[in-house]
């Protein structure tokens, strides 16, 4: 729950600094949506589409002998779709037509990293107290 709230905050920051960005979804390694600024149904469809784009892009890049795809932009007259990959996680976004590509990529990467940084870290175990049994 904490991670979801943090993702929402990171996405709110993203859409505030980058008004070209419309819908955003942060997708976890297991395919679940970690955060989004749209309805759960829409976010699910955006996540599904982003995964399909990455899978197809991987097919295309292997056919061309390229390295693994790190990010992609599909530009259409209706707007652009961006997908950025960080390990097994993805962030997908739709934008208005003719966006500032470099800035959008930068902002999406920053958002994805912010979500990662804000994710709850495993608690350290408290050191065990010595028991009296160990005493001579």
């Amino acid at each position: 729950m904490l991670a979801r709230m943090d993702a929402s905050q990171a996405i709110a920051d993203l859409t505030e600094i980058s008004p070209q960005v419309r819908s955003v979804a942060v997708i976890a390694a297991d395919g679940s949506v970690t955060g989004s600024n749209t309805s759960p149904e829409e976010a699910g469809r955006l996540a599904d589409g982003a995964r399909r784009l990455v899978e197809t892009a991987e097919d295309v890049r292997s056919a061309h002998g390229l390295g693994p795809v790190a990010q992609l932009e599909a530009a259409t007259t209706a707007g652009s779709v961006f997908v950025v990959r960080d390990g097994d996680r993805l962030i997908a976004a739709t934008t208005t037509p003719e966006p500032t590509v470099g800035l959008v990529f930068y902002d999406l990467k920053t958002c994805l990293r912010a979500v990662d940084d804000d994710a709850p870290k495993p608690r350290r175990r408290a050191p065990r107290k010595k028991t009296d049994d160990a005493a001579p």
Partner: protein
Amino acid sequence: MPRRKLATGFLLAAGSFAGSVLVRRRAARRRERVDLYAEDGSMLSLAEGTPEAARLLPVAHELLAL
């Protein structure tokens, strides 16, 4: 004489309007593309009309229609 001038002006205006529409349509069509950025820094641009773009662009259109 003024009538002829008027007709010439009208024809010029209509012609330039039609030309601008054609140029804008063509430019809009050319904008459709998919750019893939690899981890090694290389980039592959797939223009509309290529078989690879034909696999990717419909998904993008689907997402933009959400």
